[in-house]
């Protein structure tokens, strides 16, 4: 057995475990998040287990062992991030939702019909409901307030990266601020 190749591929085995763990958990979980988390934990366990076993077989130096383990952990987390985003697309992507609407309408849909059926108000309501349900936003009478959320730093980081890489701001927020300032 080529244990260095096994060591190199441990993160891929972790990704397979992530997928299987997620699919199996999804059959029993009532909400998507715990199933996704179970998948990630299964993937982490397999990545660490396979890496540790291969390192023991290779009799690697402890410092090298930690380095290889760190590399595999980072690789698995990057793969798991990609997989999570794929799953998330199925929950949040408007394009995929439109594809589903077309799949369920063999006679086809008109552009106006789609805009009417799935307008932005519906889209915003869904997102507000999801963000409130998941505790990222709080409702106080008719106002929505920010709560301590793991998504907010991610959203802010994305906006900063947008500025660094693409040299532009978030267009939706820029347009809303412009509209607000011109109306006041």
């Amino acid at each position, binding site marked *: 057995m080529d244990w*260095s190749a096994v060591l190199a591929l441990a993160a891929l085995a972790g990704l397979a475990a992530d997928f299987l763990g997620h699919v199996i958990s999804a059959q029993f979980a009532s909400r998507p998040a715990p199933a996704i988390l179970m998948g990630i934990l299964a993937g982490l366990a397999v990545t660490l287990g396979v890496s540790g076993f291969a390192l023991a077989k290779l009799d690697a130096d402890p410092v090298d062992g930690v380095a290889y383990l760190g590399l595999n952990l980072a*690789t698995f987390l990057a793969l798991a991030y990609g997989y999570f985003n794929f799953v998330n697309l199925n929950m949040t992507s408007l394009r995929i939702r*439109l594809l589903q609407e077309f799949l369920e309408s063999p006679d*086809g849909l008109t552009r106006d019909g789609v805009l009417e059926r799935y307008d932005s108000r519906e*889209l915003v309501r869904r997102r507000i409901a999801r963000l409130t349900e998941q505790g990222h936003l709080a409702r106080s009478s008719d106002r929505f307030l920010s709560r301590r959320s793991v998504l907010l730093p991610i*959203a802010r980081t994305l906006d900063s990266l947008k500025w660094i890489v693409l040299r532009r701001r978030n267009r939706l927020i820029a347009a809303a601020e412009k509209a607000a300032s011109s109306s006041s």
Partner: protein
Amino acid sequence: MTLAAFALETISTPNCGTLPKPELSGVALVAFAFAVFTLALVFHVALWQVRVPKRQSLTLLVLLLGTFPVAVAVAHLVPPLEPFAPVGVGPTLHAGLFHLAFSLAYIVTYSALAEDSPTCSILVYVADAGEAGRSEADLMQLVSNEMIVGPRFDGLVTGGVIAPTDDGSRFVLTPKGRRWATLFATFRRVYRLRKGG
């Protein structure tokens, strides 16, 4: 020697499939893998400052993934970098998989940069308002049909996913669109997810 012949010779060396040579430690391999990915990112950001390509995702994919074989070849050819060059299938695969995973993760993140996510925009917009918060009407104004649904519909047409019927009155899935729609519907069933969007 061509690059392909060089690569073939490199991965078919006698210690192929074994632990790296003593001078290439795990730490050196980690340093190599992180350095190559960082270099690819720096190159990407620098290139984007000059001009954002038309086919952004494809260009990014080619640039990020193409950096790895070039970096391996350069590390073998430039003597000061040789201690960091992965030798043999195992170490090359190890660093390569790391590079692939991070490149794909970055491309996923980049697609969120290129398009303004309504969810992220709502979160930031509400947070920016502080204790005053935002009303539902404020949030409705943030995301308009014109900016969100229309462009995505048009994107499906230009991407060849949907096409007008013969009389031009309606749009239906193309064979390519049907394959994608069926694939995502299958995953939704397997994951037991509600309709998204």
